[in-house]
């Protein structure tokens, strides 16, 4: 039976949303689930000096961890800066209680009642400076982050049903929201270069970021990301790695034949992008980060040669900001300011992609060294 939240006269606006209480109740439920399955399974990751603990109730959701495996550490002596509690209903045989906003609407600015969920999954009334609550459409993942106390919740109905993008770039909302408070901005961008300096590849999906970044794996350049990475504008612009993954559309695999032997999901290429875990197969190619020398906006030209054309500085800011804001809940004016500080310091070029792919890393390397 469907139980729709309809903006009708019978639905009341939620009066006193309590995000702190909701987090406490949800954490209490995690503890119940954890006890039921025999205790939590804890893993630790040191991401750019920030110790993060993943505490699983049951092993099902450990399937999201390979993308972060290169940050894994033994149980440390210190206290984690962020602890994420993860579970699903299906594998633990539990049932998450309904949300406190079930049956309520919210009063919109025009006076009418509307649903509580935002376009990017923000739950209205349950987002404050301290607590962020997101329900991710598509993956059906509830994420709650207590920015102040470094606690987070990651829950979904069935770990086995998570879409591929939750495996390739897991914990996106939690990491984006928490790392922003640490001065690191999660952005939708690729990054390749040399240890001494590299470039940020920006543009919306399908613009050539992934193909460019993955093509560079067949050269002497190092790799930070093809899709999502972290950036820091201070004291100098840096691109920092987060995931050890790369992905490419199945019909583009022929452009990166050097990666064909290491596709992790050969059996699912009819529905998903090809996914690679570079930490396993090319650990030497994975860089933790490098100083940024420029922003490149890939453009497919159909010509043979790859060239660089100067682009207005605004173009890089625009491409990086808009595709990031579009995807990440809570990416607001503060994120915009951080991205602007970064792009203000960097020249911007169109990377006019030619069909001779071997030229791409050479052009990038020449520009970086220059």
């Amino acid at each position, binding site marked *: *039976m*469907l*139980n*729709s*939240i*309809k*903006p009708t006269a019978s639905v009341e606006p939620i009066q006193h949303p309590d995000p702190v209480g909701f987090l406490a109740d949800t954490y209490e439920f995690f503890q119940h689930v954890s006890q039921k399955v025999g205790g939590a399974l804890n893993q630790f990751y040191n991401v750019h000096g920030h110790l993060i603990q993943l505490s699983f109730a049951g092993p099902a959701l450990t399937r999201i961890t390979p993308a972060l495996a290169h940050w894994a550490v033994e149980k440390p002596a210190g206290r984690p800066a962020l602890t994420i509690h993860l579970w699903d209903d299906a594998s633990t045989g539990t*049932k*998450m*209680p*309904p*949300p406190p906003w*079930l049956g309520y609407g*919210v009063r*919109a600015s025009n006076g009418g009642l*509307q*649903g509580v*969920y*935002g*376009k*990017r999954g*923000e739950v*209205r009334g349950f*987002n*404050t*400076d301290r607590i962020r609550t997101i*329900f991710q*459409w*598509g*993956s*059906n993942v*509830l994420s709650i982050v207590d920015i102040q106390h470094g606690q987070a919740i990651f829950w979904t*109905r069935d770990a086995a049903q998570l*879409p591929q993008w939750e495996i390739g770039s897991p914990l996106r909302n939690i990491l984006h929201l928490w790392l922003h408070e640490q001065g690191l901005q999660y952005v939708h961008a690729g990054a390749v270069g040399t240890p001494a300096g590299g470039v940020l590849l920006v543009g*919306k999906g399908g613009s050539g970021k992934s193909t460019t970044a993955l093509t560079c794996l067949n050269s002497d350049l190092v790799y930070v990301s093809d899709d999502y990475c972290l950036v820091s504008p201070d004291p100098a612009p840096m691109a920092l790695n987060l995931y050890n993954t790369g992905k490419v559309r199945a019909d583009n695999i022929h452009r990166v034949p050097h990666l064909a032997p290491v596709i992790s999901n050969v059996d699912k290429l009819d529905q998903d992008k090809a996914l690679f875990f570079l930490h396993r197969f090319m650990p030497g190619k994975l860089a933790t980060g490098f100083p940024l020398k420029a922003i490149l906006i890939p453009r497919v030209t159909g010509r043979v040669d790859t060239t660089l054309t100067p682009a207005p500085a*605004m173009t890089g*800011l*625009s*491409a990086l*900001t*808009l*595709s990031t*804001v*579009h995807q990440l*809940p*809570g990416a*607001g*004016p503060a994120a*915009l*300011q951080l991205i*602007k500080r970064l792009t203000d310091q960097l020249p911007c070029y169109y990377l006019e992609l030619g069909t001779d792919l071997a030229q791409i890393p050479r052009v990038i390397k020449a520009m970086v060294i220059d």
Partner: protein
Amino acid sequence: MTHYRVNSPNVIHEIIDGEAVLVNLESGSYYSIDSVGAVVWDYLEQGLSPGQIVEAIAAQFAGESATIAAGVEQLLAELQAEQLIVPGDAITANGHSAAVNGAANGTAKPLFEAPVLHKYTDMEDLLLLDPIHDVDESGWPNTNPNNA
């Protein structure tokens, strides 16, 4: 009727997945417009006059002419109030005929819905209120990854 142009360089913008995403760099506010509104924004960027935009939208969407004109004019007023567009010189819009012709492709026209400019300024306003989602007996939405 007044012509408008995008308030560049103060405003950056892009149409992503059918949604126009706009950022006013001076105020730090950002905005989005779905569906019809994104098409209107595309026409503004091409340099169409308000009259030409109404004509093109009417060719592309099903609805009463007066309703379409009112919806488009309301959106233009809101865009101007937010300094996302400013009055500009009339220009010859080569895209106009292409836009109108492009709409006449023989398929049924989607219904015109008055475009809404969504503004985000702080955490509470970050919410672009979504169409109501159905939930099942668990009380949680259950969306298809391919349709999200």
